[in-house]
């Protein structure tokens, strides 16, 4: 293990986090919310820890092997969350550090699960920071590092692979640094467009910024207890629904559209699956909740918003689906599993894995009665590597196992019933936000104890980094030499 390189990279990450706090501090200064000191203290601590790590760790070689890549990514996320929690504590908004950590992890992993019950009069700078963590966490901090400091590491592909969602990472242009830059530019432009459209729909600039960042990162923090429902505007619901679906699409497709290959982009098989699942589930939910809301249009408004919010793992709410038809609740749970496309800012298992697993299952069924048939699993028009298929199957097992173990551990607290505990584990691993019953869209996670919150934080990190980078940290061989 090239420990110095890891330390140096982590130092860089801390400095970038300090930099990322500046916009929030600016909001604090402008709005006089009294939290400037909280930010200043955090930035000072970050610089004091990060600067020596960055300057003094002189790696003998800049070669980043798979093990360093995974360890760096995992530790970077732990560090980010740990320090990102400090402004909440220093400002006195969440005095308990474990609560603040939960909030911070939830922000960076774009989960959007919160311990806040009361938002009235919350300091604007702190609320902005909370949403800003979504924005950074959505595309990834190491991707940002690669965009800013492309020359820092020799082989960066391990970093991007560990952080980016999806079974295999594919660059959009030959150079990793350039790819990272292009992704961030697309991301920023789309976020600004959403911000503008929300302003046009009548939101104030502050609300628009918070919700644009929450949508872009597919996070789900709102500055209102009733989430997007607080605006009670069909127009705003529609706009946010559209953007939530949009941010669940693979960003490589946006690049293809930009370079003139929109026909090509529309042919993407994953996109078809994603939009297909979205459409079918929306229609299902709409029909199931029609008796409750009366008109089809009204049901479609709430149904499509909720499915878009959950499939893109954002977690905004305009309605309390705890009160919906049980079958509609099941559809919500189902899209919680699938998540959106690989290469987007969304969490979940990813549509591509669902598609591959379905095809794999179909192949196995056929294999039982026609064992000699050679079957290649085709995806996006190409045969899929058997290694990737095997990895996908293993991923699915690890994913289910993690949810079950997490659910068990959370249940040890004995606070809530099965529905709440199971969906808490599920929603955290998938980085969605709300669950069912006591942690439904109109409630929060404040009821869990410190142990439960730590477990859920770990689940969120595991989910965001797609399990293996975090699990790698617990494997003893990673820390050995050689």
């Amino acid at each position, binding site marked *: 293990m090239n420990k110095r390189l890891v330390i140096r990279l982590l130092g860089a990450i801390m400095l970038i986090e300090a930099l990322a706090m500046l916009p929030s501090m600016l909001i604090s200064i402008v709005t006089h919310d009294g939290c400037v000191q909280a930010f200043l203290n955090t930035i000072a601590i970050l610089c004091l820890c990060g600067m020596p790590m960055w300057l003094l760790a002189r790696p003998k070689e800049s070669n980043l092997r*798979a093990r360093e890549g995974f360890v760096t990514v995992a530790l970077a996320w732990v560090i980010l969350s740990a320090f990102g929690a400090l402004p909440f504590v220093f400002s006195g908004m969440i005095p308990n550090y474990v609560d603040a950590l939960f909030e911070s992890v939830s922000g960076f992993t774009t989960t959007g699960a919160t311990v806040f019950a009361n938002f009235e009069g919350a300091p604007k700078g702190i609320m902005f920071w909370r949403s800003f963590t979504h924005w950074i966490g959505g595309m990834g901090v190491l991707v940002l590092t690669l965009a800013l400091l492309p020359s820092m590491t020799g*082989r*960066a*592909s*391990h970093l991007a692979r560990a952080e980016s969602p999806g079974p295999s990472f594919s*660059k959009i*242009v*030959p*150079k*990793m*640094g*350039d790819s990272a830059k292009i992704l961030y530019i697309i991301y920023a432009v789309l976020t600004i467009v959403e911000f503008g459209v929300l302003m046009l729909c009548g939101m104030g600039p502050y609300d628009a910024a918070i919700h644009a960042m929450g949508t872009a990162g597919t996070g789900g923090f709102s500055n209102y207890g009733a989430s997007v429902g607080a605006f009670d505007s069909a127009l705003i619901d529609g706009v946010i629904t559209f953007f939530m679906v949009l941010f669940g699409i693979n960003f490589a497709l946006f690049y293809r559209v930009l370079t003139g290959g929109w026909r090509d982009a529309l042919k993407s098989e994953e996109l078809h699956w994603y939009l297909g699942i979205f459409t079918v589930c929306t229609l299902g939910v709409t029909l199931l909740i029609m008796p409750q809301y009366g008109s089809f249009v009204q049901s479609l408004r709430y149904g499509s918003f909720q499915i878009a919010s959950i499939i893109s793992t954002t977690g905004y709410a305009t309605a309390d689906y705890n009160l919906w038809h049980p079958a509609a609740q099941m559809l919500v749970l189902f899209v919680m599993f699938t998540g959106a496309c690989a290469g987007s800012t969304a969490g979940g298992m990813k549509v591509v894995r669902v598609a591959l697993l379905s095809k794999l299952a179909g192949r196995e069924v056929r294999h039982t009665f026609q064992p000699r048939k050679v079957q290649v699993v085709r995806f996006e028009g190409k045969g899929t*590597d058997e290694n990737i298929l095997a990895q996908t199957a293993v991923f699915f097992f690890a994913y289910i196992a993690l949810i079950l173990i997490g659910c068990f551990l959370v249940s040890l607290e004995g606070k809530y019933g099965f529905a709440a505990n199971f969906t808490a584990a599920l929603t955290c691993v998938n980085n969605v936000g709300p669950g069912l019953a006591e942690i439904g869209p109109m409630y929060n996670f404040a009821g869990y104890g410190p142990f439960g919150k730590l477990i859920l934080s770990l689940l969120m990190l595991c989910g965001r980094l797609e399990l293996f980078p975090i699990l790698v940290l617990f494997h003893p061989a990673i820390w050995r030499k050689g």
Partner: protein
Amino acid sequence: MHILVVGAGKVGHMIAEHLAREEHDVTVIDRSDEVVHRIDDTLDVMCIRGNGANASTLLEAGADKADIIIATTASDETNMLCCLIAKRLGAKFAIARIRDPEFNESLALLQREMGIDLAVNPERATALEISRLLRFPFASNIEAFAKGRVEMVEFRALEKDAVVGIPLREIHHKLRGIPHVLYAAVERSGSAIIPNGDFVIEPGDRVHVAADMVTITTYFRYLGKNSLRVKDVMMLGGGRISYYLARMIVPMGIHVSMTEINEKKALDLSEALPEVNVIYGDGTDQELLDQEGLAQMDAFIALCDRDEENLMTGLYAVRQGVPKVVVKNNRGGYDDIINAMGLDSIVSPKAITCAYILRYVRQRENATGTRVERLYKLMDGKAEALEFIARPSDPYVGIPLKDLTIRPGTLVAVIVRRGKVIVPFGNDHIEAGDSVVILVRESGVSDLNEVIRK
């Protein structure tokens, strides 16, 4: 530049690695999943699995916008087809590896019709390199700069050599009449040193000196190294390199013996090369070598397919007192170890092909902006020699070198002005239009202004 490399075998991988390190946008196409994965893991390039002669794969890789396509698959035909299709799609410059001697005869026609701008024949290029070594047998390595006007020659310093043990700045006082050459670089126990005036050459150092051809020759005559003229050569293995090499050196009046283990091949060679003494037998057999008079040879060149056998037989030839031994070894990274065993001249067709292609890429690059005229990797890539042309607008023009700030670890090696070679001293200056060769230890220098400042 956007560069496409089709076929990531040994050469393709090495080229992609160098180009990616030089900040080009590289896309690699290979048919094998395994190769694609390995490249994806180790290099910052885009990888595409597919057949490089397939138009849709080439389009996916962006062949229509490519500045250069380099085809280095195992098959000549595929390489030519790749270039043909890529050029039709809009690629600007095509380089193909073509190694079959059959194609070599009609190469000009093929190149024109297929749109191949540069055809590389690794075996021929290697043979050319070896023939140069035979012309200067005292050198273990030779590089030509500035259109061949400047030669940089590497030799191993021995205890008895006059230049050993004297600081470089005093050599001219102590040794009257020694020709004025530049001590460009020294390799000592595996690391590269760019020497200054206080540097003292020790026995065993691998010294690189640069000057024009005549001066170099008189310099080595002064050192008493030029006494050997190669007249009799024995080659191990009758492969393509041996064939090309024999064709090159027989007209120079060199007598060639060649061992070949395959009877049919030996017969064919004997027919194609009537002046060559073709011996049918196992050239790694010491009995056979002794019988054919290995000990009386001026040079022994081991060129069979297996690197290990080349090394072993090469070492045997050194033991038998053959003054010049050249071995082919394609495996990079072992040069230091092999040198330590007493074999000085190692040729690697892979490295030669790679260097050849990279030189052309850099020339193309020069046409589109960056200023390196030519770049040579020295000492296994530990140092680089770069050739620039000074522009009138450059700030260092006309100022004596001693008044300029030159980055440490950099040496202004030679200045070529209107065809005349100058080995510069502190009072010399650079004029606009001069070809300037500098030596640096790190890579990535792309402009003379980066290393020389007012």
